[in-house]
């Protein structure tokens, strides 16, 4: 998938979000850094283009809530946590690039609960590659890409990586 494909998928997701929530009322878009946050910003501008409303958009870094800290030798560096408005009673559109085991989403939801009590959380992902380890299901999916565990899915966005593409790569 290239830039065009990504844009099409996001446009579809944007429409689905608006349809399901009957407009933009009470919505906030939060992306998981780095690329989930990039996608959240894109969704914000697509929705603005459709509805003329600029949704509050921010970042939710799940690192401090991960369940593998102290297990992995490689230590993740902390990223941006930016919750733009109080989230009590709002509907959060949580955005990430690739949905895999579901553990990052679990961590991000725990993080959000520390900031308040949203009315609901909906999950939007660009790619769902399967292999869930937790009972987590996306509400909006750009593309399902079935993969084996030996493979990985790499998403690149032009605003972050200089080019846009989704590729399946062999893990070494």
């Amino acid at each position, binding site marked *: 998938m290239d830039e065009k494909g990504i844009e099409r998928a996001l446009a579809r997701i944007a429409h689905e979000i608006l349809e399901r929530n009957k407009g933009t009322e009470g919505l906030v878009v939060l992306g998981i850094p780095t690329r989930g946050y990039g996608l959240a910003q894109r969704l914000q501008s697509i929705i603005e283009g459709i509805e003329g409303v600029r949704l509050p958009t921010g970042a939710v*870094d799940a690192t*401090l*809530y991960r369940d593998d*800290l*102290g*297990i*992995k*030798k*490689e*230590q993740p*560096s*902390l*990223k*941006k*946590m930016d919750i733009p408005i109080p989230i009590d009673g709002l509907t959060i559109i949580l955005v990430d690039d690739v949905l895999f085991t579901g553990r990052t989403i679990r961590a991000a939801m*725990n*993080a959000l609960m*520390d*900031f*308040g009590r949203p009315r609901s959380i909906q999950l939007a992902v660009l790619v769902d590659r399967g292999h869930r380890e937790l009972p987590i299901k996306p509400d909006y999916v750009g593309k399902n890409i079935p993969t084996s565990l030996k493979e990985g899915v790499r998403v690149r966005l032009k605003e972050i990586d200089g080019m846009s593409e989704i590729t399946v790569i062999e893990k070494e």
Partner: protein
Amino acid sequence: MRFKGKDLLGIEDLDASDIDLVLSTAESLREVSEREIKKVPTLRGKTIINLFYEPSTRTRTSFEIAAKRMSADAVNISVSTSSVVKGETIKDTAKNLEAMKPDCIVIRHSASGVPMMLANYVKCSVVNAGDGAHEHPSQALLDMLTVKEKKGAIAGLKLSIIGDITHSRVARSNIYGFTKLGAQVTVAGPPTMVPPGIEKLGCRATSSMDDAIKDADVIMMLRIQLERQKESFFPSVREYSRLYGLDEAKLNRAKKDVLILHPGPINRGVEVSSEVADGPHSLILDQVTNGVAVRMAIFYLLLGAAKE
């Protein structure tokens, strides 16, 4: 990226990338203290012992809050120096504490080198919370974070540290830290309190307060121990204050956007006048806030990854 080594004993041992990592991690963690629920589950199940051989409510509290905000269990042990003389050696204490399976020991001691001794005796992480006149790495890191927050970067800045350099661990750690990040450091004080060979640490030394403040972007005033007067390091508080105290008259000769740091607690009217301490240039309270973030970052970096 992960932090090298199991301990944080001094800034001298770190390189610029280590310092940058602590500062960027602290910048991310600063937000936690702004929340309603000021706690993240990151270090659940970790035990941190604050072993303080010197009374220091401020530093100990800062470490304790940092540990708790990261969900670690913090235990405070205060040891009065008098009971140490009578009994247990550092080694005994180390072995005893280790038997309780802590993940980290934060140690403050009046004798230089004790954190290093402790680190050699125990397997868990050791954080130096100030040892003698040697180092106080978390203080220097919070000072760097505070300056970086206000000035954007450390490189190219001019820092002047003023006061009793000889007896100051804060001065040593900051000389190492700021020079590693590309700042120019000047130390100033009466010649009785500027130790021999201090230039070898990477700074310039002067006994002129004017010389130290005129081009400085940041002025760090050190606390003067009034007892030093008895040892003839300075003849009187009045004369010390007149020569090396920072008041508005001297501040007028500094840059307009100069920042004032002080590791606290301040002797008001001695090293810093009240107007200056409470004035617009003073970052003394930002330092306190950043202290918690820096110590959270230290715990995250030392305890947040699997052991080698």
